[in-house]
């Protein structure tokens, strides 16, 4: 592989990492609270609100049902509003984040669901406020599940970011398509795939380690 190819690969790796980490971080920031909201507003839970729950649920489902490649171009006006441009790596972060938020929300809701409801009742019997129940009981107890969910989200974002090339986002997927596929450069294609595999392995093993560290049930 030539020096130029290495340079291309390095740049693409950087773009993929940039897109994955920033959209991952933002989606946790918004998705986890949304997941908490989905959990606590369900009938019989600590802040029961059937209307809010079904509205949020419908929005989450609607967002999740749009194929990412469509979402990428469908929200271009919003992307331009938020980051000033609709093309480039930074612009790709907007649709990536938007697609990941409902994904994270459902995963967070599921992780919190695994916390035995008896713990919530025990906290209530101690006079805990709903906010305290979330911050002191639900989130700490769901932490291993949340970490697992974040790992899955990051891996999914790596693969979604491959589509960012459609709006000039760059990244490893884009490199593979343009150089590997369209210019018949098998070496670049192979290199892209290898880098992606290593990247995903790395994310997964860090995630597993963190999850193990925080899991006190074993």
């Amino acid at each position, binding site marked *: 592989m030539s020096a130029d190819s290495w340079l291309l690969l390095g740049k693409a790796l950087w773009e993929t990492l940039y897109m994955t980490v920033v959209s991952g971080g933002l989606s946790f920031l918004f998705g986890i609270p949304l997941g908490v909201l989905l959990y606590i507003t369900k009938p019989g839970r600590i802040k029961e609100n059937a209307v809010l729950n079904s509205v949020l649920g419908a929005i989450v489902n609607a967002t999740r049902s749009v194929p990412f490649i469509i979402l990428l171009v469908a929200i271009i006006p919003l992307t331009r509003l938020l980051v000033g441009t609709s093309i480039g790596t930074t612009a790709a972060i907007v649709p990536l984040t938007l697609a990941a938020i409902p994904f994270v929300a459902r995963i967070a809701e599921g992780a919190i669901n695994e916390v*035995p409801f008896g713990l919530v009742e025990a906290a209530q019997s101690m006079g805990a406020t709903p906010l305290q129940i979330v911050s*002191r009981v639900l989130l700490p107890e769901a932490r291993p599940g949340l970490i697992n969910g974040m790992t899955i989200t990051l891996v999914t974002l790596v693969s979604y970011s491959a589509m960012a090339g459609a709006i000039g986002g760059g990244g490893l997927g884009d490199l593979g398509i343009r150089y590997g596929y369209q210019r018949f450069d098998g070496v670049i294609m192979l290199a892209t795939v290898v880098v992606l595999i290593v990247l995903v392995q790395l994310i997964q093993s860090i995630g597993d380690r963190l999850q193990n560290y925080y899991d006190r049930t074993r």
Partner: protein
Amino acid sequence: MIELKNLTKVFKVGGRELKALDGINLTVPEGSIYGVIGSSGAGKSTLIRCVNMLERPGSGRVIVDGQDLTQLTGKELRLVRHNIGMIFQHFNLLSSRTVYQNIALPLELAGASSQEIETAVIPLLDLTGLKEKRDSYPSQLSGGQKQRVAIARALASKPKVLLCDEATSALDPQTTRSILGLLKDINRELKITVLIITHEMDVVKTICDRVAILSHGQLIEENDVESFFLNPKTELSREFVCSAIHQKPAAEVESRFQSEPTEGSRPVVRITFVGRRVVEPLITRAARQFGTDFVILQADIETVHGKSMGFLMVEIMGEESDVEASMTFLRDNVQVEVVGYVS
């Protein structure tokens, strides 16, 4: 300390209404250990969960330490709950927290400083015998140790009342005894009123001062534990008492059992002794004095509410008048009840 007035709770299950609690009236005296016993589905858990409003009663009043909890706002209720500790069948400890951190939780929730928390938690670790386990996680503890942590946690906010929802039902007999001993100590030393929900008569027998029986959402009998064992009034309470003293006649006798006397049948009598009567030779005295014979079908001595109680089931043989005289003699001294006849 706890007063339930005309408490009613109806659940809607698949369109049908289920009366979990049906006009419950109950008073738990300050400083006592009060047991509510019942079969599963009788409404026991609903009852105890109404005492700290984990379950909102449909109607009626819940008065704890002079305050009607059904009238309180959410915020007032949360404050009152610091006065009411609760422990559960499945312990409900936070798996992500150490023993120390679990016990500290109610104090953290109330906004105590780490200094205040330490001064409160350390003595509780001593009281519950968990000093060595301070930094262990719940998954590293046995069931009994977990319940001890839960008890320490319930006591952290210095409550006046401790609610125990089937607290020993998931524990083996030996661990149950040690947990009951701990509850008794807490009741005596810290002057905490204890309300216990259980389906195990052994729990009532070992530590309760008073007991109530719950059946299909209604309190059908209420008494001090001694009178309850001595003189159960309802069929259900008799069953519970028999289960606690393992009273069941041998199969050979049971097959010949009849409820009404017939020509030549002999009475089967249940005799209950209390206190010093346990050590008196009443049966042999009756046998010598009236020339009757006694077949011992079943016998047991139990400690109920700290007192010895003897339970004896005998078949009395002899001339009819002698048998009558023997029974009269026994009646003058102990509790006697004819439970049936054998021929």
